[in-house]
Structures are given as structure tokens and as C-alpha cells.
């Protein structure tokens, strides 16, 4: 394993070593002549892309895939099966898809099934309804670039219901190939300029790694603000102010990114915090990008998810008329867990109509998002209702997932509390636990010698020795000198128990080794 090369700007540099490594690798493969030729065109690739820092977690992921292959080929390991809980992928973690979703999609793909007596009537009805919305009655046609109008209005109805009647409009909703694509889209409307005019994007630390990669790709200036671990990873507006003000010296902060419920920390924002954040954004004239993809998973009793949109409207004018907000949701998270279908949406609030027109024009230069995903999205926002033939099964499946997740959250906190060297803040919502690792000085020293962050060394060893793949805190960002791991809890109980058992075994061994 090599070195940590996450964003050198924030978390210290290891980038050069990573480049040196690949360079050696290359020269082994190509003769001088070939090199001359090949390097000719691509010697200078887009410098913006070079800035996307290679996240060493990627290497961990690649190693995990390699181990899976080796296991298949019968290579002997101390374990029979690799468990990957490094990403929020419910199905990979052993969760089952929602039957109604899959039945409707299958019927749309293969309409012969509409004659199948085994399918419930509401499945067929929904499939009919959706196919009627497709050109030529086929899910194989392009849809409008920002999504099927019918699905957009079902999303808009859902938002209105969720927000206690705050109006939403289908025109402000864009359906995309997953929330990440929607994030990139909104960011690229805003990111431009050079030098001190360059757009700065304020984002929380820790944040999942592909967001920082997206900022790199677009060439935005990073404006990190730190969440407060001691206060259960709360967002503190003073810290936000500090970060944004400091960044004003070298860029123009235009965007404030928040994740609620948080990935990876599990913090759920209270209405009061959200109000403060909105006021702050109004003061600083920042566009709020509210990543709310975990809105369905709040486990802490007595806490409810409140959307930024709702709070914004309940604050009233001038905020409700001026603060620009983009709110994101996705079929990948929540109880659907349909990551592979790639669908999500963004609702844009208070955008100039002229800007909206430009945005739509630009969006249409790409193609629509996959229709199967749009169908899943429609079901997510408009599930079977009481009385429908599929209702009982649907609500049982959702309840089962919810219970499993809540149970997993409790379980992980219980187990980690008992192991020395772990502290874990309360997980109020979302898919993940993000416990802090208190590693022995010798382990940190050893990692330094290897050119690794200590938590990455930990994760690498855990993967090799116990076949468990986690994400290291250093890939997500953390305060200097602290170490964390992230594990996905949206898994079957069996998977989680396996992870905890192996993690505990490894952890104690690791502590002993470096004691």
C-alpha cells in the first residue's frame, strides 16, 4: 500500500509520492519509443482533472475487488467471505430490494408481464400509467432532459406533502442520474472565475469523498468548515462564518453545501440550526445546496427531519423570497437503496426564470437520466397507499428495513462502547457510524514511516487480515491528529454482526501489537 493523497490542500501532501509510484509502473510497461509517441498527445491532460486528488480509499476498494476475485479462485485467506461496508450501498450489504419497485420496473421493461396473473393489480396499473407517459409507450425512448413530466409532478406533490403544504412546482424540479450528477450540475452553474473571482464552495468536514472530487473536477475553490465532534458533530454557525470569511481573501464564496442527516457523522440538524444557517447564507449571499438524501432515515426518537425548504418558507420574507436553495434527494438512499438504478432529483428554489431557462437548455445538451431509475423515483415519492393490493407488503418491507437499521445503530454503539480505543457520537440519522479511533502512538508512528495516515493503515490491515472493507476518516477529512472510520449500517443484521465480530477481533490485536 502506498500513501495518502487526499486533498493536499487541507490534509497535508502525499500526492507526489502517489504520482511517483504510477510513473515507475508506467515506465516498466512501455518502451521509450512508445512512450515518446503516446505521451505526445496526452502529456498535458486537463490540469483541472489532475487536481482531483486520488483518494487512497479507491486503492482500498480495488484491493477489496481483487481479494473477492482471489477468494473465488480459491486462494486461502483467514476468512471465506469479504464484507464491504465502506460505501452506502444497501443491497451490497444484504438488504433486499422493495418488491413493488422491482415488479413495476420489470412490467414496464417487459410489458408481456401485464398479462401475468401473478402480478398484483396496482403493479400493473402503475406500470400502465408510467408507460403511457413514455413516448411510443416504451421505456426505451428518451424522456425530456429534466425528466418525465408526470414523475416531476409526483415529486412536487411529495415535497408539498412532506413540507406541510409549502408549495412546490414541477418546473423547479430536475430529475438526474443520481443526486451526485444533480450536485455536479448545480455546482457547474455556479463555479467559474479565476483568482479572487473564483467560486468558493463551503462544505463540511468530514464529507464523503466524491464531493471533494467533484469540486476538484469543476475547479472550485474549497472552503472547508469543521463540524464539532464533541457536540455530536453539530454544525456551528461561528465556524461556518470563520471559514467563509477567511476564504473571502482568496476566492468568492458563492455556495454553501450542507448534508442533513449527515454523511458520515449521522448528525441530524435541528430547526434552530437550519434557521441560523439560512440567515447566515442570506447575509453572505450564498446559494444553499442542501443534500437531503438521507431524509427518510432518522432513527433517534423525538427527532424529525425538517427540510431546508420548509424552514426557509416558514422564516417568511425576505428570506423565503430571496435565498436560493437547491435540495437533493435520491433513490439510492432511504429505504429503496437502489443505487444501481441511478436516479435522483434536485428542487431549485428562488432561481431567476432566465437562469432556469439557461439551466434547462444546458441540461438538454446531455441526455435524460435512465428511465428505470425515473420509475423507481416515482414509486419512492408515491408509494402504494392503504387499501392497494401491494400496500401491506410494501409497508412491511419498509418497516423491516427501518427496524433493522435502528437496531444496527443501537448495536454498533453498544459494541463500540465496550471496546477500548473507540468513541462514537450518537448516530441520529443516515446510513453510517463514524466512530473515532484512539490509536497507540506507536501505530501512528509506524503509519508515518509507511507514508500512510494511521486510520488508512488500520483499514488496510483490517481488510487484509479480516476481510472487512471500511472507509478511513482520512479520506473523508478530519481534524489533524484525529482518526476515524466510517461503516455503513444499512446492512442486514447478519452482515453487521459479522463486521463487528471481525472488527473487534482485529482491533484488540492491533492495539496489542502497537501497545
Amino acid at each position, binding site marked *: 500500500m502506498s500513501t495518502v493523497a487526499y486533498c493536499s490542500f487541507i490534509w497535508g501532501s502525499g500526492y507526489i509520492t502517489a504520482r511517483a509510484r504510477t510513473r515507475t509502473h508506467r515506465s516498466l510497461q512501455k518502451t521509450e519509443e512508445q512512450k515518446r509517441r503516446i505521451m505526445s498527445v496526452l502529456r498535458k491532460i486537463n490540469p483541472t482533472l489532475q487536481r482531483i486528488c486520488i483518494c487512497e480509499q479507491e486503492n482500498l476498494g480495488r484491493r477489496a475487488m481483487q481479494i473477492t476475485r482471489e477468494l473465488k479462485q480459491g486462494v486461502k485467506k483467514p476468512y471465506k467471505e469479504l464484507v464491504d461496508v465502506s460505501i452506502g450501498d444497501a443491497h451490497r450489504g444484504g438488504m433486499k430490494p422493495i418488491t413493488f419497485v422491482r415488479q413495476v420496473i420489470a412490467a414496464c421493461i417487459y410489458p408481456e408481464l401485464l398479462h401475468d396473473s401473478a402480478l398484483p393489480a396496482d403493479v400493473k396499473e402503475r406500470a400502465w400509467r408510467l408507460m403511457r407517459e413514455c413516448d*411510443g409507450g416504451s421505456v426505451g425512448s428518451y424522456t425530456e432532459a429534466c425528466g418525465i413530466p408526470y414523475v416531476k409532478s409526483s415529486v412536487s406533490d411529495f415535497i408539498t406533502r412532506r413540507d406541510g403544504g409549502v408549495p412546490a412546482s414541477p418546473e423547479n424540479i430536475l430529475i438526474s442520474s443520481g443526486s451526485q450528477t444533480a450536485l455536479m450540475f448545480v455546482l457547474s*452553474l455556479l463555479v467559474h472565475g479565476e483568482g479572487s473571482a473564483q467560486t468558493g464552495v463551503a462544505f463540511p468536514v468530514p464529507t464523503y469523498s466524491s464531493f471533494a472530487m467533484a469540486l476538484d473536477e469543476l475547479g472550485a475553490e474549497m472552503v472547508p468548515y469543521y463540524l464539532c465532534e464533541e457536540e455530536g458533530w453539530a454544525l456551528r454557525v461561528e465556524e461556518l462564518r470563520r471559514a467563509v470569511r477567511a476564504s473571502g481573501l482568496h476566492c468568492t464564496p*458563492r455556495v454553501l453545501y450542507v448534508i442533513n442527516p449527515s454523511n458520515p457523522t449521522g448528525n441530524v440538524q435541528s430547526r434552530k440550526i437550519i434557521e441560523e444557517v439560512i440567515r447566515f447564507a442570506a447575509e453572505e449571499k450564498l446559494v444553499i445546496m442542501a443534500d437531503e438524501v438521507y431524509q427518510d432515515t432518522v432513527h433517534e426518537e423525538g427527532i424529525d427531519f425538517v427540510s431546508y425548504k420548509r424552514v426557509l418558507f416558514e422564516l417568511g420574507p425576505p428570506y423565503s423570497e430571496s435565498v436560493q436553495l437547491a435540495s437533493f434527494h435520491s433513490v439510492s438512499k432511504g429505504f429503496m*437503496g437502489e443505487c444501481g438504478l441511478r436516479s435522483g432529483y434536485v428542487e431549485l428554489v428562488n432561481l431567476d426564470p432566465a437562469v432556469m431557462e439557461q439551466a434547462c437548455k444546458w441540461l438538454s445538451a446531455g441526455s435524460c437520466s435512465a428511465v428505470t431509475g425515473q420509475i423507481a423515483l416515482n414509486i419512492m415519492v408515491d408509494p402504494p397507499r392503504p387499501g392497494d393490493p401491494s400496500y401491506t407488503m410494501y409497508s412491511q418491507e419498509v418497516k423491516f428495513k427501518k427496524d433493522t437499521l435502528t437496531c444496527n445503530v443501537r448495536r454498533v454503539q453498544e459494541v463500540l462502547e465496550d471496546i477500548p480505543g473507540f468513541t462514537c457520537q450518537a448516530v441520529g440519522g443516515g446510513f453510517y457510524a463514524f466512530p473515532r479511533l484512539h490509536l497507540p502512538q506507536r501505530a501512528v508512528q509506524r503509519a508515518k514511516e509507511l507514508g500512510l495516515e494511521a486510520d488508512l493503515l488500520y483499514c488496510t490491515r483490517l481488510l487484509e487480515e479480516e476481510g472487512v472493507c471500511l472507509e478511513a476518516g482520512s479520506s473523508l477529512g478530519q481534524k489533524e491528529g484525529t482518526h476515524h472510520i466510517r461503516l455503513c449500517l444499512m446492512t442486514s443484521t447478519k452482515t453487521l454482526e459479522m463486521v463487528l465480530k471481525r472488527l473487534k477481533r482485529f482491533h484488540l490485536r492491533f492495539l496489542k501489537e502497537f501497545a
Partner: protein
Amino acid sequence: MHRFQRLSTSFLLSGRFGRQRDPMEGAALEPRRGGQTVRFKAQGPARQCGGSKRYSTAEATVESRGNGEVRERTLTMETLNPNVKAVEYAVRGPIVIKAVELERGLQDGMKQPFAEVIKANIGDAHAMGQQPITFLRQVVALCTCPELLDSPSFPEDAKQRARRILQACGGKSLGSYSASQGVDCIRKDIATYVEQRDQGVSCNWDNVYLTTGASDGIMSILKLLVSGQGPSRTGVMIPIPQYPLYSAAISELEAVQVNYYLDEDHCWALDVNELHRAFHEAKHYCNPKVLCIINPGNPTGQVQSRKCIEDVLHFAFEEKLFVMADEVYQDNIYSSDCQFHSFKKVLYEMGPEYFKNVELASFHSTSKGYTGECGFRGGYMEVINMDPEVKAQLIKLLSVRLCPPVSGQAAMDIIVNPPQPGEPSFLQFHKEKTSVLSTLAEKAKLTESILNTIPGIKCNPVQGAMYAFPRIFIPPQAVGEAKMLGMPPDMMYCLRLLEDTGICIVPGSGFGQREGTFHFRMTILPTTEKLKLLLEKLAAFHIKFLQKYTALGEPSDKSPSGQAKAHHP
């Protein structure tokens, strides 16, 4: 018409200055409009002038303002990314917006001189009634809903493929993220398919990447290639006429568009001398390092000869160009005297010096061919001779978007791994495939021959792909009128056609054409019956259009240079 005018103006307007933070700005209540100037697309994207006024301290900008004021918004036309404003995309441009409006109007009972809007603007086969390939749909449905694997109504070979795909997915579900490059076993199937297609030329599955439709792959590769400033800025050579995805991507990435013209007089052939000309002229102002080829051609429908491909590759080798071969229409070949040759195979046959050196990316998709599955967003690219270090960057770039839709990947797998002779589904699959392709071939012929009977229209043979791109004669009086309206003459033509007949096609100006010539692109996808009707209506409209404008002007047989002389009425 009003709608159009508004749109066309807003396409050309773009704010000159990015928002500058001004300590005094807190006092300004009116939205800023001052910095706006008119720019034309040809001038390139607006750039930040930057730095004329800087705010001294951050503190100065964070003063809270009193309540009740109308606050200035952050994202306005002035602060919008200028590249967004520069992008234009004709296939879904103002004409299409108008068509959708008319269609909705008809549904609401508005009176029009036509009963329906016929959309021949976009290569969307299923929308025009083409039936899906049963086997493909069966496999993807089985993958989606694995309970169906027990159902007796699905053939065994479909089940076997579905099981194999699911086995390769995390948690055996299409709902898991795949690797950013795609599902391993599908990448391997693609490699096998490419080897067979290219008669044994080896294909390493590690060079194969699944994409969200071909356009996503094209965008990723272009993104990788764009760098430099001023005269060292990357130039991207594209054919004219081109598919506007390329010009849109180039303008979004602020690369330099380098046009090479296809030869209309020779069936839209690619002439290497023209490549030389374009390349050497471009060298004065940019660094041309990418050559895009669309074969079979979109919108032009030509199929490149083997000799021509060889010449192009030789040129790319000499000038060290990265070749992007858009081969999404590789299965859509209609003329019996044409054959599809992949760039990769020809490169191999030119010898190891070429095959080991020329960097080549080839794109394919589920949306075209005989499947026409646009909605699944499946596609792949094969990239050869890419520097390993750059390849790592490519993978990184792909991973930002996590992965392509897995159901689209499954659909792609069926295209590269269809039923084989002896398998239960083979006969039906073969029948469906042949039927789709032969119908398309008939329609290609039909379109070309009817268009050529209309005076003032001249159409090259539609050898492949899904489009006809005929040249149209537009009388000088009509050209004059269009100029007054501030729109390209063929745009006015298509707009009138739409308003009179409900036919939606795309003007040649959206694809690029030689100065003074006019064209339109229509798909050959409507059902034969509808296609005949469309062509009939088009003919009537065209004649009426000519009559109207020649009657307006002085009766004359002078035809302006560059017009379709042979058919001047």
C-alpha cells in the same frame, strides 16, 4: 414566433462580467444589469476580466442588512457560469420546444392546420413505434425482478444470462453500485464481442469502460484532453456537419472547435486534404490534438470506406492526434455496397507501428443499432494506447459519477452477447433484428428517393445511421426575410414547416454547413406509412414555400452561388 425570438436572443446574450464583490454593494437594492453586453457564440465564451475591483477585507462583506429589503440573489444571469450560456444544442433547440408546445396545444383542443405533430428531429426509435427486442427486455426484466427466474414463461437462455449478470452484481442486485468502469463480466463480454467484430484483433477488457450512453463517454474523454491557454489551448477537430453534442461539449469545456468540412458533392465523404487544411490553419491559434470522427455519419448518413479510414489514421499518426471514433451506428448500414470497418481493426491492419501508437477511443451505445434502447442509457467505450498514468486519471474522473446505470449495463451486455444459433431464443431474436434493420434500410431508400423528386431539394444516399440530411434551396427573398428576423434561413424554413404541417425537423444550421448552403436533418424512424405522409407534406410545403418567395421577388433564373442549382425551379 415570439417564443422563438425570445429564445434566440437569450441564447446570444451573455453577461460580460462575473459578479464582483464590492464592499459598497450592500447598499445597492437594484439587481445589477449594467455589465451585460451582447456577445455572439463565435466570439467564444465570455471570460472573467477579473481583479479590477477587489474587496479589501472579508469583514466588509458580511454586514447584515436590515430586514424587509429585497435582497439581491446570488445566482443571476450575471453570475451564471458563462460556459453555460455559450452552449447551444439544436436537436432539442427552439424548434423542438415549439413542437412540444404545439403538441400540448393539440391535446388541449387548439385548432391547427394538422392533426398531429410528427417528430423526426431525434434518433429515438421507440418513440416512433419501433418494437423492442424481446430477448433484451426479457433479460433486463429478469435481472430487475429475480423472482421471475422461476417463471416458466421465460426462455432458459434469457434466465441463464440474467443469472450470470446478477452473480456479478454486489448483493446479486441491479440496485448496487457497480465499479465505475462497469460490471466486470459485462466488460469481458464486450471485449469478446469487439474481438469477434474485428475478426480476431485482440481486445483487453481492462480498456473497456461502460458509460451512461455514448455521450457520457465522449464528454469524459474530451474533458481529459482539454488543457492549455491561448495558442496552446486544445483544439478539437470535428466534422461539419456534426452532431451538436460535440460543439456543446467543446464550448462547455472552453476548448477550440476546429472544423473540417465533409464533401457534400461526394456523398459527404471525408477528404484527408481537408483535414490537413483545417489542421494547419488551426495551428496558428490553438493546439489541435483531438480528431473526432462519426462513422456512420450523423447527421450525414455516409459510411466511410476502408481506404478513407486508413488515410485518416495515417494522418492522425503523423500529426499525433488522439482519435475519437463515434461508432454508435455500426450496426446501421443500409447500402449494399457499404460495409462498416471499425477504426480499431483498420489500425491493426496498418501494422504494429500504428496499432501500438495511435491513441484511439471508440464509442458504442444501446440507443441506436437495432435495439434503439435510448431510455436505458447504456453504452461503452474502448480506449487503446492510453498512457497508464492518464488512464488512472480517467478512472478517477469516472468514479466521481459513481457508476453508469446497471440496467443499462445489462442491456449493453445483450447487444454484445446475443442469443447464439441453437439457443431457444435465437430464431425470434434473429427475426426481430433482421426485421428492424431491413425496415430501416427500406425507409432510408424511400426517404432519399422521394426527397430527390422534390424540386429544390437534393439528398445524398442514406448509406447508414438514421438520418437524411438533404440540401434545400431557399430563395434569396426568404433568406432576406430570415435575416430581418435575426435567424438562420433554414431555421425559419423548419419553423414554418412545423407551424404549417406539424413536422418537426432540425435545421442544418444546428449541425454546421458550408456558408450559403442550407439543409435540414430528418430521421428515417417514423413508420413507413407516417414517413410517406411526412415526405408528401414536406414536398407540398416546399413547393408552396418556393412559390411564395419567388413570386415575391422578381421572376428570375439567377441562382445565387452555392445554392442547389440543379433543382432550381
